[in-house]
């Protein structure tokens, strides 16, 4: 990169390539360029196939201004050697940038580009210290790298402007530079951090969501115990607010269960916290209260359950189509109907459905068996199924 290859080096490489002695190669290269320089002076034009055209150009007199003094002066006409590379060679040299085409842009985009360019120039000149024009002349290694870097950045900007981001990585792969990579790294890091935060939030939310039946139950227990002594109505309100929200949430998460098996897991967490704290908790506190209070108290609790059950209502049996929630509380437990060994994956709702034809009646089973937390039943335990008698 950026080495100057002189005559002897060139001859050496040619000797290896062309299979002639180094001296002959050197002589050949020397003659090659001598002829060009001589003939261009004497004839004004030299065409070398595969390289290009050297041409003598006449420059006219022109007026110029001395930048320091502001004086006008004329630059006298002179001759200049121009070189135009062969089309083939030109194309091959430009291969690394061959993918880019000239694009039409709007004025706004042009302005934006100019802005970016100036910003970028400011950025680049800082670490490199030297201003750009000096480097351009000196053509140091740094400059070349800088130029490439700039090209890539400008290219990236251009792509952005065009909203064609897919070409960008391809470019980066072709000519990776330190700055480009660090830039990409920083954006990647930012993305990673953002994703990490999102994931943690998600996980936290999920765990909270999963633990809610336990925690929520306990909270409700405490609230129950403290408030039962004073005003039961307050408790009712709280119960009605929380479980409904939760139940609705759960329903949203597990897309409306269309089939019975799919419905069960969704319904399990949804139903239980909703009713469990309401009935079994309140009922033990009952005996102290008047019997007249009982229906008044349990009814609101089951009403809270209403939206949940309604969502699952599609798998109700036909004869239960007229079975309303009000009916749920109209039973008393009268002795043991049978026992049931809980199988893996079975819940109290399943048991209720099996023996009563309605899963809504599961709280009676829970109460009869003194189950505190129906969400945590280990398979294999024997459950006593009570006989239900309507009042």
């Amino acid at each position, binding site marked *: 990169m950026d080495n100057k290859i002189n005559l002897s080096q060139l001859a050496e490489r040619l000797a290896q390539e062309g299979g002639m002695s180094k001296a002959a190669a050197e002589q050949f290269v020397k003659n090659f360029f001598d002829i060009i320089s001589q003939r261009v002076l004497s004839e004004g034009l030299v065409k070398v196939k*595969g390289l290009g055209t050297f041409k003598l150009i006449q420059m006219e007199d022109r007026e110029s201004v001395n930048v320091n003094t502001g004086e006008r002066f004329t630059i006298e006409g002179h001759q200049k050697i121009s070189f135009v590379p062969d089309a083939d060679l030109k194309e091959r040299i430009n291969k690394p940038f061959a993918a880019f085409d*000239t694009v039409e842009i709007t004025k706004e985009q042009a302005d934006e580009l100019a802005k970016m360019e100036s910003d970028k120039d400011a950025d680049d000149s800082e670490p490199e210290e030297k201003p750009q024009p000096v480097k351009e002349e000196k053509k140091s290694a740094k400059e070349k790298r800088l130029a490439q870097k700039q090209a890539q950045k400008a290219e990236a900007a251009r792509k952005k402007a065009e909203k064609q981001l897919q070409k960008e990585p391809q470019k980066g792969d072709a000519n990776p530079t330190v700055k480009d990579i660090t830039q990409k790294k920083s954006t990647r890091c930012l993305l990673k951090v953002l994703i990490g935060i999102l994931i943690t939030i998600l996980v936290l939310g999920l765990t909270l969501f999963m633990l809610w039946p336990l925690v929520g139950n306990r909270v409700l227990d405490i609230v129950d115990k403290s408030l039962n002594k004073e005003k039961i109505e307050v408790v009712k309100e709280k119960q009605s607010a929380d479980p409904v929200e939760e139940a609705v949430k759960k329903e949203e998460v597990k897309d409306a269960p269309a089939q019975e098996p799919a419905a069960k897991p969704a319904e399990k967490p949804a139903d239980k916290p909703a009713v469990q704290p309401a009935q079994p908790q309140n009922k033990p506190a009952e005996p102290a209260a008047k019997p007249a209070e009982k229906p008044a108290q349990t009814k609101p609790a089951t009403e809270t359950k209403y939206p949940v059950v309604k969502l699952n209502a599609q798998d109700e049996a036909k004869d239960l189509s007229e079975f309303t929630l009000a009916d749920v509380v109209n039973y008393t437990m009268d002795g043991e109907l049978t026992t049931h060994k809980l199988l893996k994956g079975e819940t109290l709702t399943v048991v209720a459905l099996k023996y009563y034809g309605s899963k809504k009646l599961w709280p009676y089973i829970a109460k009869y068996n003194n189950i505190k937390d129906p969400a945590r039943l280990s398979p294999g335990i024997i459950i006593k199924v009570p006989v239900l008698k309507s009042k």
Partner: protein
Amino acid sequence: MNNKQFLNELSDKCQIGADQASVQVENLLGVMEKIWQDGDSVSLSGFGVLEVKKKNERVSVNPTTGVRMLVPPKLVLTYKPSSLLKEKLK
């Protein structure tokens, strides 16, 4: 002076056949192209420097239609005559 004349003169000067000369010219150009593709430049005293320069992308405006075009960056082979050769021009 076209390519044919150039090859003739070169073969005369090097005392090799015209076929040989054209083959060697091809080899030389191949070597130089590799040099340029590596980002190096060919510098010869008395002749000048042949090197590849990178031209930055730029926005060009068509003066008659006012259409703005973004010209992509490109690599261009440039030639800068040596001061010795420039002296001879005067």
